[in-house]
């Protein structure tokens, strides 16, 4: 009986409107477009009033789970609290209104801000230089791999292959591929980490780089990172680290100190910028000083007491996007670091790891844990036990919705069949964790006693379970009226 919000196109009515401009204040000239026929109408484009706009989006908004309302333990995504003061400072008029093509003299505040965050990220990671241009993690990977390719090309040979552990996020192989590399998978060992022997075997002169995620997507620290770097470097390769999981390590481990040549961070994870329903984020890339010449343009530098844009960099990989990155995201991340300081950031890692281990300990024995190495910021269970009753990870996930909880990540790591990758982050209270644990334990019992209940879940959401197969089979990708 609960009413469903129609599509805007179904609310539309000819003649309704929500917006007007002031009357044109220059003499009108009806012959400006020459032989070009201006379009007479935009078929189907919706016409609604302002109250309808507001209701439409407000109602739709309420059907979303989000960090502001719900525990959101989506593994690998670091769904932490997004501080509200950061939104406020990112809306200051000097930032919002400044044009990316403005003369640099008039936007020194912006350049100082970007430079500042670059410097602080160097401090945090031990890398020697950062670029804040990439729009997201994957974009950072691409940028980073391009830097590696450019550096190796400069050394004489870009090489052909990139090694990537089988536990890696899908963007890693995809980014390497767009950069012109073939991808070879390294199998994880029983501890869930890189098998050094395998690495030694595969790390040939053909291999440009190893892309390692640390802690990896199982939440396990690649403790041999030092040795890994040695092997890669010995064979003339470079070491790329996917820093998407830095929330576990911040203030505890600086990749730049331990042989990592290129690193990307996700500001929308570790540095608390909001995920926006899928973006925008930012994926800054840090490099060693050796790789600095290859950074994308523009690079901000200080010259005669002011900040300028350096685009004249012959070794640069070139431009990876227009303008200066997702600037407002950068503002928020800087605000976050300045608020937390050194102690605060370390506390982030500590509590993130505490929370994950609290969950792990509370669910171990009830859910199957394929890799039992110590967990850092997340733990990856599987549905192995529940599958005996025909219950899969997706059923558990959908049942969590009935308890008002966002499900964990299930799409990876691919090496855990039926994965439930749980990352609570440090911004969850014990009460929230306990509610989640409690729900998971109940669900495990329900899986025993009433598996159908789970397979039909969710029962109490805005919609019942949606048919994703049908969606892909008969794609309806736009309203057609």
């Amino acid at each position, binding site marked *: 009986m609960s009413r469903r919000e129609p599509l805007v196109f179904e609310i539309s009515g000819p003649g309704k409107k929500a917006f007007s401009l002031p009357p044109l204040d220059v003499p009108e000239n009806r012959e400006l477009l020459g032989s070009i026929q201006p379009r007479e109408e935009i078929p189907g484009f919706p016409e609604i009033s302002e109250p309808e706009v507001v209701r439409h989006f407000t109602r739709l908004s309420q059907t979303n789970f989000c960090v502001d309302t719900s525990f959101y333990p989506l593994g690998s995504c670091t769904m932490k609290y997004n501080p509200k003061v950061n939104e406020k400072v990112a809306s200051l008029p000097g930032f919002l209104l400044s044009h990316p*093509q403005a003369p640099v003299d008039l936007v020194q505040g912006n350049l100082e801000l970007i430079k500042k965050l670059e410097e602080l990220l160097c401090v945090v990671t031990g890398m020697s230089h950062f670029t804040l241009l990439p729009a997201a993690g994957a974009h950072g990977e691409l940028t980073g791999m391009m830097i590696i390719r450019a550096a190796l090309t400069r050394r004489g040979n870009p090489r052909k292959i990139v090694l990537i552990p089988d536990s890696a996020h899908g963007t890693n192989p995809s980014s390497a591929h*767009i950069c012109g590399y073939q991808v070879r998978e390294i199998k994880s060992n029983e501890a869930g980490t890189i098998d050094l022997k395998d690495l030694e075997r595969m790390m040939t002169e053909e291999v440009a780089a190893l892309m390692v995620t640390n802690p990896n997507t199982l939440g396990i620290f690649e403790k041999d990172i030092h040795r890994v770097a040695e092997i890669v470097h010995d064979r003339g390769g470079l070491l790329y680290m996917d820093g998407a999981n830095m929330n576990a390590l911040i203030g505890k481990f600086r990749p730049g100190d331990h042989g990592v040549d290129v690193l990307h961070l996700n500001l929308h994870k570790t540095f608390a910028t909001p995920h926006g329903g899928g973006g925008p984020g930012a994926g800054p890339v840090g490099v060693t000083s050796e790789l600095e010449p290859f950074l994308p343009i523009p690079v901000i530098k200080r010259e005669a007491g002011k900040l300028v844009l350096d685009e004249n960099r012959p070794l640069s990989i070139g431009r990876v996007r227009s303008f200066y990155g997702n600037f407002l995201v950068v503002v928020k991340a800087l605000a976050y670091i300045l608020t937390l300081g050194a102690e605060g950031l370390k506390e982030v890692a500590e509590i993130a790891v505490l929370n994950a281990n609290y969950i792990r300990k509370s669910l171990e024995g009830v859910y199957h844990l394929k890799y039992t190495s110590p967990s850092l910021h997340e733990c990856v269970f599987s549905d192995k036990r529940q599958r005996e009753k025909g219950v899969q990870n997706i059923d558990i996930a959908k049942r969590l919705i009935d308890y008002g909880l966002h499900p964990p990540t299930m799409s990876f790591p691919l090496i855990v069949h039926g994965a439930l990758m749980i990352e609570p982050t440090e911004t969850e209270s014990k009460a929230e964790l306990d509610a989640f644990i409690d729900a998971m334990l109940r669900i495990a019992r329900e899986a025993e006693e009433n598996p159908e209940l789970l397979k039909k879940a969710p029962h109490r959401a805005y919609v019942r379970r949606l048919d994703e197969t049908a969606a892909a089979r008969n794609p309806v990708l736009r309203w057609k009226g």
Partner: protein
Amino acid sequence: MAYIPLSPADIEEMLRRIGVEKIDDLFGCLPEEIRWEGPLELPPPLTEPELVRYFEGLSAKNTYQQYASFLGAGAYQHFIPAVVDYLSSRGEFLTPYTPYQPEVSQGTLQIIFEYQTLICQLTGLDIANASLYEGATAAAEAVLMAERIKPRPRILVARSLHPQYRQVINTYIRNLQLELEEVAFDAESGRIDLDDLKKKISEDVAAFVFQSPNFFGAVEEPAEAVSLVHAKGGLAVAVIAEAVSLGLLPPPGSYGADIACGEGQSFGLPLSFGGPYLGFMACREEFLRQLPGRIAGQTKDAEGRTGYVLTLSTREQHIRREKATSNICTNQAWCALRAAIFLETLGPQGLREMAYQNLQKANYGLERLTSIPGVRRRFVGPIFNEFVVRLEKPVAEIGNKLIKSGLIAGYPLEKDYPELKDCLLVCITETHSKEIIDRLVQAVEEVFS
């Protein structure tokens, strides 16, 4: 710490349950040798009042906003209705992630579906994705997509395509054994030089990429160029850097574009020093499986009610890994949300009126400026909201003088087009009152008298 909701007692209790004594014990997996022990050399933490003051200081160090500015060149100042900020700042829109779990993300998903439809309606094409990073990478993705559809070694781009977009395309393809070639612009009209295109088009061209209105503000009539490309079996990729133009100018679908992509910043996103912006992409239905990025689709729930999901994810990196149509994962969903609110608020009349006022005001400014001796129109033919003037005094000198009068007259073209070193690209939108345009005219007049 304000963002950590555990009391000391909570922590104690949790450690006890875990069975360790102190938090540090949980980091036992980090070998001591590699652990960072000292404090990070960061500035001391700021409290909220200090933080606000610090950023107010930085914001005030930018003086750009005190000027009357006629900058465009890929980023456009348009009015943003209050509802866009009001609605988009809701936590339910700001703080969820990609709607992997559709049952708790119907808001985000339905809005993406509406956004995709709006983009299709505006571009006159069949399907659209949920967003890309911004205009330049959208253009680069379009090139990669075209090459997957037509695996041929050459890519043509119009020299009148935004210089930064050309550079980004170049960055993306240089590792992929593809060759990039520029198609000249007609020296008189600033539009695509069809002769040059004819010379360069061939059966080994995967795609021809052009922009309309182009970087000089000139409105292309691309039908003929598109035919030339199609005749050789290549794809026509139309780039729109100024999305508001879609409210008035013929849509890419109408002149045969196979893929339309570009920058959606004009749809409700503040200038923000260049980001976050909104890459959009639409194409013909047959290319669906090659489209990069997320796509929302309609489906039914277990009770037969309509709902929305992310779909066709077999194109994407989390399933296909190195064989994916793109590496994109996090996109610009929130910017697409703002565009959807913006477009639904303006409606067809509002968007058309906005575009129309851009057209009228820019042409008014063009006419007034070029009536000044020493200022000449560089290209003939219709423009939208930008135009190029040639100045008889050095562009930098003029620019500096105008800045002293509180005016930023436009974007000097010399850096990107040495051949246009005496030229300035001027942008006028609905946000420029007649009064401010007249002020510019007067100031330029003074400089030239």
